[in-house]
C-alpha cells in the first residue's frame, strides 16, 4: 500500500526537481568553463593578427639580411622547416 502511494511522489520529485536541477547544474558548469567574454575574444583576435603580421615582417627582414650577408645563417628557415614547426605546434 505504502509503495503505491510513494511511486507518484518519487516520479514527480524526479521529473520536476531532479531533472531540471541536473540540467541547470551542468548548464552553469558548462558556462563557467567555456565562455570567452567579448573582450577576451577581441584581445585574442588582435593578438593573433599581430603575431601573424609580425611573422610576415620578420620573415621579410630575414630574407633581406640573408640576401645581403650570405654568412647570415639565422633562424631563416626553409619553407619545409617552417611547415614542420607549424605541424609540431599544432600537435
Amino acid at each position, binding site marked *: 500500500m505504502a509503495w503505491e502511494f510513494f511511486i507518484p511522489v518519487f516520479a514527480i520529485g524526479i521529473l520536476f526537481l531532479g531533472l531540471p536541477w541536473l540540467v541547470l547544474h551542468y548548464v552553469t558548469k558548462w558556462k563557467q568553463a*567555456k565562455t*570567452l567574454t*567579448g573582450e*577576451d*575574444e*577581441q584581445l*585574442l*583576435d588582435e*593578438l*593573433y593578427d599581430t*603575431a601573424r603580421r*609580425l*611573422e610576415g615582417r*620578420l620573415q621579410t*627582414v*630575414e630574407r633581406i*639580411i640573408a640576401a645581403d*650577408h650570405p654568412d*647570415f645563417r*639565422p*633562424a631563416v628557415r626553409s619553407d619545409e622547416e617552417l611547415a614542420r*614547426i607549424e605541424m609540431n*605546434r599544432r600537435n
Partner: protein
Amino acid sequence: MSASRTKFYLDKQNAKWSGVCAGIAEYSGIDVVWIRVAAVMLTVMGSGMTLIAYFLIAWFADAKPYALYANREEAQFWQGVRSNPSRSTRDIKSRFRDLDRRLADIELYYTSHNKRLADEIDSLR
C-alpha cells in the same frame, strides 16, 4: 570585428538544406560528411527529435556573416579557440616567443658582425 567568432552560425554557403549540419561542422571542425551521416542515421533510427531539433536550430540560429574569416587558416584558428581557448592562447604565446627568438638572432648577428668589422678596421690601423 562586430560579429562574434565564438557563436554558432548556420553555414549557408556550404548548405545542403538549411546549413545546420554545415554550421555544426564549421563550429566543431568535424568533417561535414560525418555530421550529415550522423544526423540522417539518428533521424532514421531514433525518434523524430533530430528533425525537430534541426528545424529549431534552422529557425533560431543566425546565418554566418559573409567573410567572417579572411582565410582558411583563420577559420581553423577560431575552431581551435572554440574547442580549447587556453590552448589557443598558449599557441599565440609560443608564436610570440618564436618571434622574440628570431629577432634576438638578428640582433646578435648585427651586433657581433659590427664588432668583427670594427676589429678588422682596428687591425688595419
